[in-house]
Every structure is written in structure tokens, then in C-alpha cells.
């Protein structure tokens, strides 16, 4: 797989996408794909969640509805920590999923017919961009002749 990708790239073919049933080490670097920025979003939303949860509890327990629980002070940080933590995780997790769905343009009623049913199962696929179909097909065929390929079309 990696061998085929390298050979195609060396010969100035444009690869639009590579599909594989499991992550392949070194593929991202070979295709020079930039690292995802989703963790940054996750961190920002996590921090937002932490501030919101802490602020909300502080407001509820001191201003809006002060209750004496176990003789503790109204503003007692240790009790706020578990909820702050949970809301941080919730915000970070949900925001990352949402960001991923938006960025990959996945929405509920999406319909898509795959090129070949086997792509979704256990086959490795390299999609090559074509301007002239016949010409590229021949070129790719000759390039990949030394490498075990199942089908080129």
C-alpha cells in the first residue's frame, strides 16, 4: 500500500484519497496530510465547559438558591469539582464529535453510493485524480505493474 502510494506520488500523480480498513502507520506523512485541529477545539470547549459549570454552581449556591448542606460554607470549591470535571469532559467530547461531523460534511439524511461495495469491507483503495481517463489508466497500470494490485479501473 505505502509502496504503491509512494510510487504514484513520485510520478506526479494526484491522489485524491486513500481508503483502508485500518490505520496505516506512515501514510499521513507520505500523503503530507496536515494534523487535525480537532484537539484544539476540544481543549477550548473543555475550558469553556469548566468555566461555565464552575460559574453556574457558584452562582446557584451563593446568589440564586443558597442551601446549607452538612454545615459547609455556601461557596465550597471541593463540592464543585466533580460537576466541573464532568461538564468539561462532556463539552470537550460533544464539541469534538460535532466539529468532526461538520468538517467532514456528515449529516443525517446523507445518501452515498460507494464505488464498490468492497471498499467498506476489507480492501485498500487509492483514488487517483484524472483529467484524461484513458491516459491516466494506462499510466497507473504501468506504474503499479510491479506491485500486487487486485484491480485498476
Amino acid at each position, binding site marked *: 500500500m505505502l509502496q504503491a502510494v509512494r510510487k504514484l506520488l513520485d510520478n506526479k500523480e494526484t491522489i485524491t484519497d486513500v481508503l483502508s480498513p485500518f490505520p496505516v*502507520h*506512515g501514510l499521513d506523512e507520505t500523503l503530507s496530510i496536515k494534523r487535525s485541529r480537532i*484537539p484544539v477545539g476540544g*481543549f477550548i470547549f473543555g475550558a469553556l465547559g469548566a468555566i461555565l459549570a464552575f460559574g453556574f454552581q457558584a452562582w446557584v449556591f451563593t446568589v440564586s438558591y443558597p442551601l446549607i448542606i*452538612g454545615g459547609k460554607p455556601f461557596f465550597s470549591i*471541593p*463540592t464543585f*469539582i*466533580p460537576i466541573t470535571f464532568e461538564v468539561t469532559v462532556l463539552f470537550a467530547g460533544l464539541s469534538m464529535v460535532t466539529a468532526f461531523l461538520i468538517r467532514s460534511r456528515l449529516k443525517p439524511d446523507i445518501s452515498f453510493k460507494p464505488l464498490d461495495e468492497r471498499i467498506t469491507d476489507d480492501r485498500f483503495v487509492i483514488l487517483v485524480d484524472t483529467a484524461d481517463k484513458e491516459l491516466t489508466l494506462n499510466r497507473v497500470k504501468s506504474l503499479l505493474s510491479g506491485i500486487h494490485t487486485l484491480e485498476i479501473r
Partner: protein
Amino acid sequence: MDEQFDFKKKYRNILIILMTGGILVSLAVILISKPGASRIWANVLLNNQYFIGLSLGAAFFLAVHRVAQSGWHTLLQRLPDAMTTFLPVAFILMLLIYFGIHNLYSWTDKNLSDKVIEGKRAWLNIPFFFARLVFYFAGWIALTSMIRKNSNTLMTSSDLKYHNRKILFSGLFLVFYGITVSASSWDWIMSLDAHWYSTLFGWYVLIGMFVTSLAFITLLIWFLKRLGYLKYIRPDHIHDMAILIFAFSIFWTYQWYAQYELIWYGHLPEETSYYITRLHHFKIIFFINLGINFSVPFFGLITINSKRQIGWVAIIAAIVLMGHWIDYWLMIMPATAGDKAGIGVLEVCMTLFYASLFIFIVLRSLSTGPLVIKNDPYIEESLNYES
């Protein structure tokens, strides 16, 4: 692959000078300023506990990876292995506690009329205390040296028998360690406040030990790489060490918080006494402890790039090492030295002595063989590791 660490005379001399300097200055401080017997013995106990923790944490690191049959750590497995060679020395140093036991543990007093301690006599008595101490060390030393021997045999032999035996002993070590580390932390630290108890304490100490040894292994990698060894240890391996430091620092904070919050919520006098002495008399150190051990690794190692720079990870590791020394300080000092507790020249010099002794033993043990065990079946996996 056959490179061997050369423990140069220069380093030997520096370490010996630091060792003698540390012990001489400590003696001078003891003679001049008379800090009180309990503070001196508390220092001995503190450093014993800290450096035993470094050795045991390293053994735990190896045992976990070997039982899980992980491949990535194979290239650096001799570093934690060398750290476990400190245990026999630690045994002798721990036996020294015998001479200061009355200064450290209030329960050793025979004429004590205290209902609570009377009830704990079955566990807390001097003969049983030392019997347990010998038992812990016998198990630790025997198991770690068996693991080390079988692992080092793979330098010359390529028989898989030794590899499998190493895994077997690692499994046995994990079981033994899991029980004894809790029991030893009750004995050596928790019984300082003989009335106080926390069921989480053993776990809390274990995680602290593990974080310190991870930090020390990272510093050792950094040191050896600076000298030009360990060329094959790439950012991918550093990345994993940093992930472990990051994760277990957070887990340490979780343990800290779980222990604190339950005691704070329950508000039982015999439990809160532990935090009241620490929070009221040593407020600054109390919050420094939490700040250093959580915030520094959390914010310092949160991005991928920061985890892959050995220099940066080494800085964080050094701070974490100091932070956990303060953590042990907070467990031990306020209970023993009381109002006289502080971080002064005595503490620094005693730690300097122990640290240089520890590093001397680790480096000497490292220099006895090649840095990589080349017949280990996982060596290829570790060389091509990508995190």
C-alpha cells in the same frame, strides 16, 4: 547496538564529592543548629521513602510492560532495571530507622495510655514492624533481582525460556508489590499519625511512586542522549514517556482529590486532623504541592509537540520530581517534626546525599553491560515503533 555506558571517572568523582559534601554539611547543620532528633530522623525516613519509591516505581513500570508484553519499552528497559539495584542499599538505610523509631512513631511508646493506639497494637508493635520491613524488602529484592537476571541473560543467550521466565516473575512481582506497597505505606507513613487513617492512602503513595520513577527514567534518557548514547530512542519513545507522566500526574491528582474530598465532606475529627495540621500550618507548601504536581505536567505536556521534545519533557520531569518530594515532605514532616518542620539546608543536603548515592548506584549498574538487550524478542518492534 552493542554500545555500553562508560561511567567515566569524572562523573564518579562529581557524585562522590556531592555525596560526601551532602552528608558533611548535614552533619554540620545538625551539630550547629540542633534541629531536634525528630526532624533529623524524619529526613532519613523521607529520603528513604522517596528513593525506595523511585526503585519500586521503576520495577512496577517494567513489570506492567512485561506482563502486557508491550514492545515499545524494550530499548530502554535497562534504565529502570538499573534503578531497581538501589533496593539492597535502601534496605540497609531503612534498618537505620531502628535507632530513631521513638523519635518518629508515637505508637512505639510503651507507657502510652491511649485507647485508639491500644486497639491497633496487634499491627503496630516494634517486632512486627521490623518483621514486615524485612519481609517487604526480601520479596522486592528477590523478585527484582530474578527479573533482572533473566532479562540480562538475554544479552548472551537467545533462549526464549528466559524471556518467559521474566514475564512470570513480573507477574509475581505485581501481585506482591500491589499488597506490600500499601502495607508499607501504612507502616512507614500513615502510622506517623497513629490516630489517623485513610483507606486510599496506599493507592495514593503507589501512584506518586510511579510518577516519580517515570520522571526519573525520562531524565536518565535525556542525560544519556546528551552524552551521545541511545541514538535509536526517537521522539516516539519520548512521546510515550510523556504520555505516561501526563496521565499518571492527572491520576495522582484524582487520588489526592478523592482522599481530600471524602475527608472534607465526612468531617470526622480523627480524619480531618491530618489535613488541619497541613492546611493551617503549611498552607503555602500544601498548595504548591497540588499546583506543581497537577498544573505543570497538565499544561506543560498537553500538546503533541511538547510531548516529543526531549529537552522540554526533561524540564517538566525535573519539576515533577521536585513536586513529589514536596508531596512526601507534606506526608511525613508535619506529623513528626511538628512546628520545627521546614525546608532548609538540612533537607536539601540530606536529599543531595541520597540523590547522588542513588544516581551513583544506578549509573554503576548501567555501566556493567550493553545499554540494549539485543536478544530480546521485542527489539525489532521497539526499533520501528511509532506512537
